[in-house]
């Protein structure tokens, strides 16, 4: 896993510059600590963000709201609440001000262990617990550093609670007010993590962050996406893994008004499927129902348990990715 430790000195400067730019563009702190680019690519100066703000995890807004990017899909396991809890705990953020966003597609949001952006295998917390704790701790350290610099005191004399940094002589500053200055602080290579006894959120019961929009119909699921001029595709999938059409009669399907195109595509599970593209779902559905497909099953893979077992044995001996190494 690539962490801040991988930044070369020269790169840290351009990194700081990026953070500064982000602060101006968004009005607040955007902390981005995980750049999963290979070192060679970073040295070649390719580490600059391609799109704003895909490689950010934390955005402290001027109004005090803190938006945390969730690098997983929420499909009921509660990760839209639990990952923000972990980050917010280490960050000492005010939980009532936390908002969760599902992250867009970008390298930095890949599962640290699997190396791809995915959710599954009960891996969300197992693989990202350490990652989100470090993100929270480093964000907190940058906020503390900003306050310490402002007050001309050592960072060790500052403590944090509920989105506020407290310093000596009763001084205090809200995270939101420190965000711009914090964005110009160097990303620390390491930041101390809390002792479990000091957790304020981890292990406690909190209300889900996504309840209300799921109860009033306002939450947008994948199927709810609507872009200008968007077409809808339905796929006639092979009835068996590995099957392909021997012949497709799409005459009746193409006669349905609103059908844009019908063509063969590779099927996810090998073989070939037939895609119907139309202006709307119902049009595509009617057209798909009218397809006459003669499926060729001759290339269908026969599953063999002993062969599969041998394949798994070999795979188990190959090196994998390391997510967390305990000391």
């Amino acid at each position, binding site marked *: 896993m690539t962490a801040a430790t991988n930044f070369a000195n020269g790169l840290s400067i351009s990194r700081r510059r990026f953070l500064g730019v982000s602060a101006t563009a968004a009005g607040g702190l955007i902390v981005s600590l995980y750049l999963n680019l290979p070192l060679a690519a970073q040295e070649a100066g390719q580490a600059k963000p391609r799109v704003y703000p895909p490689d950010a995890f934390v955005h402290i807004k001027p109004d005090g709201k803190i938006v945390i990017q969730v690098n997983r899909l929420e499909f009921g396991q509660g990760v839209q609440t639990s990952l923000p809890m972990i980050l917010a705990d280490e960050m000492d953020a005010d939980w009532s001000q936390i908002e969760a966003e599902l992250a867009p597609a970008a390298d930095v949001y890949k599962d640290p262990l699997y190396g791809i952006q995915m959710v599954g295998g009960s891996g969300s917390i197992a693989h990202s617990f350490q990652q989100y704790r470090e993100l929270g701790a480093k964000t907190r350290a940058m906020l503390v550093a900003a306050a310490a610099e402002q007050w001309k005191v050592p960072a060790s004399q500052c403590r944090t609670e509920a989105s506020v940094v407290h310093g000596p002589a009763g001084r205090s500053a809200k995270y939101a007010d420190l965000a711009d200055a914090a964005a110009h602080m160097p990303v620390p290579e390491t930041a101390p993590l809390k002792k479990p006894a000091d957790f304020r959120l981890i292990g406690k019961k909190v209300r*889900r962050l996504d309840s209300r929009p799921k*109860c009033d*119909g306002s939450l947008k699921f994948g199927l*709810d996406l609507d872009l200008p001029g968007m077409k809808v595709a339905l796929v006639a999938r092979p009835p068996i893994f590995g099957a392909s059409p021997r012949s497709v009669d799409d005459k009746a399907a193409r006669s349905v008004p609103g059908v844009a195109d019908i063509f063969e595509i590779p099927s996810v599970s090998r073989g070939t499927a037939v895609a119907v593209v139309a202006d709307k779902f119902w049009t595509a559905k009617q057209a798909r129902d009218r397809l006459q497909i003669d499926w060729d099953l001759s290339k269908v893979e026969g599953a063999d348990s002993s062969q599969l077992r041998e394949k798994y044995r070999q795979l188990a001996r190959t090196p994998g990715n390391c997510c967390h190494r305990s000391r």
Partner: protein
Amino acid sequence: METYKLTVNGQQKEVTVDPGTPLLWVLREDLKMTGTKYGCGIAACGACTVHVAGIATRSCVVPVSLVGDRPIVTIEGIAQDPVGRAVQDAWVSADVVQCGYCQSGQIMGAVALLKSTQKPTDTNIEESMGGNICRCGTYVRIRQAIKSASQQLNSGGAA
């Protein structure tokens, strides 16, 4: 293509679609109201439940041509109804949702139940809500939330 005048959440809407288009797709694609979900498309899961003339209806199998002048209420409009509001609040208080995909339909089903049966028993709930499937298995909290909404409504707590 035919033109239909629909009353959705108290508002007049006009759509020009194929008469066989299910109400679900008219709501989602023509009226851009995506709170009502597409699950199975064969009235077997309940995700697409809306109210048509007050009756919980699987919108995925009702052709728009059969709706006529019956008023339609969807998840987007259910908060205008005191029972609907109480059910939504009970759902949030009990943290019923997980993935949430079926919950629009669950809530529409629960509101219809509470309108016909003020104090539903477990059996009433199971019989009435049995056709609303939840992959996450939120059934226990659904039952709690329906009872809590019922209590709230019967204590005169709903505004």
